[in-house]
């Protein structure tokens, strides 16, 4: 348990500006309830050079009781996320490091957000959770991709 307390302290420092590497990525990363460190919410900036640029994207993070032996459970929430590796209905993310098999307890929540940023930069249409977007990507239609993402972010359903 003390591990997540340590992380919280580190995150606080990083967000105060001691870790510039995250300045462009993280808008917010904090526990939901003021004194329960097992439930977090995050807001990240859509990376530049992606259709997500200019948007803020919300995530929820659940810390399992045996964390960091088991990985955190991360979802795009509360807003729907148009991405080929994200389930549009549930927000579930297909990311190897979030599976027990590929997770390493040496990583922390900041690593996780970095990995998610990378997934936004480099979608993997070969293992899709959103077939529509995966197909557009496979066809290499960048304009349609950007248009679709924007459409969803601007209130489309």
């Amino acid at each position, binding site marked *: 348990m003390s591990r997540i307390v340590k992380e919280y302290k580190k995150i606080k*420092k990083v967000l105060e500006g*001691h870790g510039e590497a995250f300045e462009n990525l993280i808008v917010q990363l904090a*526990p939901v309830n003021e*004194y329960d460190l097992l439930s977090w919410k995050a*807001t990240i900036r859509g990376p530049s050079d992606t259709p997500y*640029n200019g948007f803020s994207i919300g995530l929820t993070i659940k810390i399992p009781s045996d964390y960091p*032996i088991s990985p955190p459970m991360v979802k795009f929430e509360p807003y729907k996320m148009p991405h080929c590796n994200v389930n549009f209905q549930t927000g579930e993310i297909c990311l190897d490091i979030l599976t027990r098999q590929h997770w390493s307890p*040496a990583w922390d929540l900041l690593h996780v957000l970095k990995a998610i940023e990378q997934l936004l930069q480099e979608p993997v249409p070969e293992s899709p959770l959103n077939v529509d977007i995966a197909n557009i990507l496979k066809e290499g239609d960048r304009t349609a991709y950007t248009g679709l993402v924007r459409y969803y972010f601007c209130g489309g359903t």
Partner: protein
Amino acid sequence: MNQNVTDASEFSKTSLPQLGQLDTLLRCHICKDFLKIPVLTPCGHTFCSLCIREYLTKEPKCPLCLNELRESSLRSEFLVNEIVESYKSSRKQLLESLKEATLTVDAPPIDITSESDGDDDIQIVATNKKRIQFRQDIVEPNKVNKRVPKNTSTFNNVKKCSKTTENLAQCPICQELFPLKVLERTHLDECLTLQSLGKAPKKSASLKDASSSKISDILSKKQKTTSPYEKENFHVNRYMFSANSGDRQRLPKTNFTSMSLNQIKHKLSSLGLPTNGSRQNMMVRYNHYEMLWNSNFCDAIAPVSESELKRQLASWEASQKTSNLPSSNGNTIASLMKRSNNGSSYQRLLMDFKTDKFERKLWIDMFGREFKSLIKEAKRGMLSTAKHEEKSSQGKAQETV
């Protein structure tokens, strides 16, 4: 927010920010705390014995390099253990004196970080010779011993003794060193008498009282009293006299699938473990105890007793229960622990925090308020940047390229 949650960044505001690296290196990459009973993997990585053992029950790989890793290939690292322990014992003082040193320097602080990757001492000294020198002057009276690893214990030994017992004098007959007073009052007479009788001089009863100041005795390390020397060199000595005795048996992994409930109970009670709870409870209990046992008896430089292990087990079970609330019909161990923890003091919880038996629930109850203020603090920092973005976030597009 409290002393237990320490981290390497505490050095960033001191006169030696590069010490943060050392602070980080002495920590486990699983729990992020200082290494506790460190073990070495064949791939060259070090973790707390319990941390890595617990992880290996889930995934057979090294958390750092992801190479395949088996529990049986872990080896204890006594040296690292003692390095960590001795570092921990002086960390607080070290931090304080480095902070003081920074305060005394009225010139703007040197930007050491920009010049060094941490280990390039020569460069720092060359460009900032004067100021670094100045700092050392401040630091050294506070007994920051920078060269501990280079001193052999014997060397230290002699130095210490000659310092603490300045009035030593050599007996002209037997050549041994004694405090001057002892020499004058009793020893010379004895030595002369013995010599005249043709016998080798030996310690008399009166001398034994003063023997703690006798160099040969101190060197022989057979003293029972704890002299300042022994305290200062506790970790050096413990390392030098350490050996994996192996007189305890490794507790084997057990395959419960083919065992009856009675067989499982028998197995537990043969180890003196409680047999209450479901089959699942008992399996989990055995598996955790097996981990505690092997970590303690196979890896630790100073193993604790079996009863201490059982206490750790009970405490762990209790913490499992509290983190999986609400299950009110807890088994006896959990309820026992809860009862004994009622009215537990803050100190007690802090102690637990350091070890494995930290109880999250109690902690939250006690520090809910502190967490809140911390969170507020953190939010204040983020709010300014977050505010305008939130407005333009989801649902409203911002004009972009």
